């Protein structure tokens, strides 16, 4: 199929095989199978791409649901951007603090893999596009419903990829808040995806196992002369994925590796030099932090608990027993820093100050920041109890910079970046 015509073939046939727009038999409508000329289309090509997407999107879905759980949305309304989730939150669990790189890995995989899969998704959609125009529009009720389901599959899938890609570039043009859109969109997409997989995966596997290709409606009845083999086309798609991967993955590492992420939002050089020079999610200026409020003689940390309220200046906090932990900043946007060396007061020591000596409870943390969905955040008792969880005053041996949360910030192992509240003003311990 798709070989160049050999000598001896009638001239009229040769003309047909060539890409001649003047040929009267050239079907002009995309509803005609002869409209689609690429010799690459066929069950084998589509099946390979489909199975790659099956594996990849499964990983995207699992890491996405884990990331959702990592916010502990069932703990407090301030963590929950989807309060009407209903049974879609059925699997939620107390997000652990071990291993401390858990969220970093999860989100790095989610975003990097999502970006890497884009060429595969585009190629898959290209490979089946003749079916969009196929006539009759429906052969049976089941077929009609399947085609409606395909709209949810293609529209929902593209919606997920587009909102994700826009969000990591801070381009908030989508109609609503990212969290509910990407979360509920994922479930709509998943519903169509599972049905599609159950209907198609057996055929896809059979197509790959068979050495001789079976024919189907995707194979062009009048293929153009090939410019690349099917295998070559797959390498082409893989090359696109590799290029995206290579220019993105580095934003999860430090040093020279980050510089390889040439086009990723947090690739390239670090924003500064020195101990505070690592990546920033939102700067103090962006969050609306007023330096008058963070000045040493003004700022007080208000800690409330069982025994009442205490107010601590930064100097008094620095006089409490200080501890160190090496923890990363890992953002939902799929970038992270290497472990930074934080130094500060243990959260459980702060809980003990207000009456929770042996039984650290949940904590509600409020920031000075004016903007941002997470200027208030809740941490669960297991996160408060972890000895590595700190209210950090120093990083890498130096005072926190304003952009990293001066006068004091939360740092918790394995928690999503935004739950590590910066510019902390108030902490309320107690069961939420």
């Amino acid at each position, binding site marked *: 199929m798709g070989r160049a015509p050999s000598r001896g073939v009638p001239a009229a046939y040769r003309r047909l095989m060539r890409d001649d727009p003047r040929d009267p038999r050239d079907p002009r409508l995309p509803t005609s199978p002869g409209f689609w000329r690429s010799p690459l289309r066929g069950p084998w090509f589509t099946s390979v791409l489909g199975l790659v997407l099956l594996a990849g999107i499964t990983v995207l879905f699992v890491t996405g649901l884990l990331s959702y759980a990592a916010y502990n949305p069932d703990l407090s309304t301030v963590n929950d951007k989807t309060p009407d989730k209903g049974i879609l939150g059925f699997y939620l669990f107390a997000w652990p603090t071990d291993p401390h790189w858990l969220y970093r890995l999860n989100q790095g995989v989610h975003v990097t893999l999502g*970006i890497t899969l884009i060429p595969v998704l585009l190629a898959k959609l290209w490979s089946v596009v003749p079916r969009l125009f196929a006539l009759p529009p429906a*052969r049976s009720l089941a077929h009609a419903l399947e085609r409606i389901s395909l709209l949810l599959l293609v529209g929902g899938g593209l919606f997920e990829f587009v909102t994700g890609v826009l969000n990591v570039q*801070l*381009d908030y043009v989508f*109609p609503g808040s990212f969290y*509910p859109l990407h979360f509920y969109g994922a479930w709509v997409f998943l519903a169509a995806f599972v049905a599609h997989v159950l209907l198609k995966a057996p055929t896809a596997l059979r197509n790959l196992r068979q050495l001789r290709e079976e024919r189907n409606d995707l194979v062009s009845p009048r293929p153009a002369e090939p410019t690349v083999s099917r295998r070559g086309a797959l390498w082409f798609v893989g090359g696109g994925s590799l290029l995206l991967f290579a220019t993105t993955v580095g934003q999860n590492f430090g040093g020279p590796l980050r510089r390889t992420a040439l086009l990723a939002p*947090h690739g*390239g050089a670090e924003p500064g030099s020195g101990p505070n020079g690592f990546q920033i999610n939102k700067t103090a200026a962006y969050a609306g932090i007023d330096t008058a409020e963070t000045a040493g003689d003004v700022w007080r940390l208000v800690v409330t608990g069982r025994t009442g309220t205490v107010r601590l200046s930064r100097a008094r906090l620095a006089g409490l027993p200080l501890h160190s932990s090496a923890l990363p900043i890992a953002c939902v946007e799929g970038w992270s820093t290497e472990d930074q060396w934080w130094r500060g007061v243990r959260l459980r020591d702060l809980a003990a100050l207000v009456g929770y000596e042996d039984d650290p409870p949940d904590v509600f943390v409020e920031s000075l920041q004016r903007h941002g969905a997470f200027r208030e955040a809740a941490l669960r008792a297991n996160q408060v109890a972890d000895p590595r969880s700190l209210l950090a005053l120093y990083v890498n041996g130096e005072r926190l910079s304003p952009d990293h949360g001066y006068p004091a910030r939360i740092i918790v192992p394995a928690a999503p970046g935004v739950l590590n509240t910066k510019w902390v003003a108030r902490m309320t311990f107690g069961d939420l």
Partner: protein
Amino acid sequence: MRRPLMRGRFAVGSPLHLLLLSCSFALAAYAGVRLLAGDWFGVALWIVGAALLHDLVLLPLYAAADRAVVRGLGRVRRREWTMYVRVPAALSGLLLLVWFPLISGMVDERYRSATGLPPEVFLPRWLLITAVLFGGSALLLVVRLLRLRRAAKCRPPAVH
């Protein structure tokens, strides 16, 4: 070709398919109601629009561009050069498509003030990658042509 539509009776299809699709729609509706709870028109527009924009605009555009390249090279009898143009152009276009907000500078202000990073690096980087892709492709083509020429010289003259 059987055309059940024409016979006046519409076939139902496999009951198993119907059951599976009903389950799928039930879950999609449960999540969809929540997805559409805010700006329902905007969200519906985005989902349907994404599918239509891809299938009816993006795909025809790149297919037409590809056809133009193949035809153009065919006209000058250089059809075998197609991949040397197609690969760098597609890879460069792919990077532009994915990182368009950063490369085009449309999020410059927010990006700079939020991350403290310079947004103006992305356009030159993309141009540089594009130049490397086309340059590398041209180099490969030159190597291939030189090899072909050498092979043609070594071959004994054709017998007529």
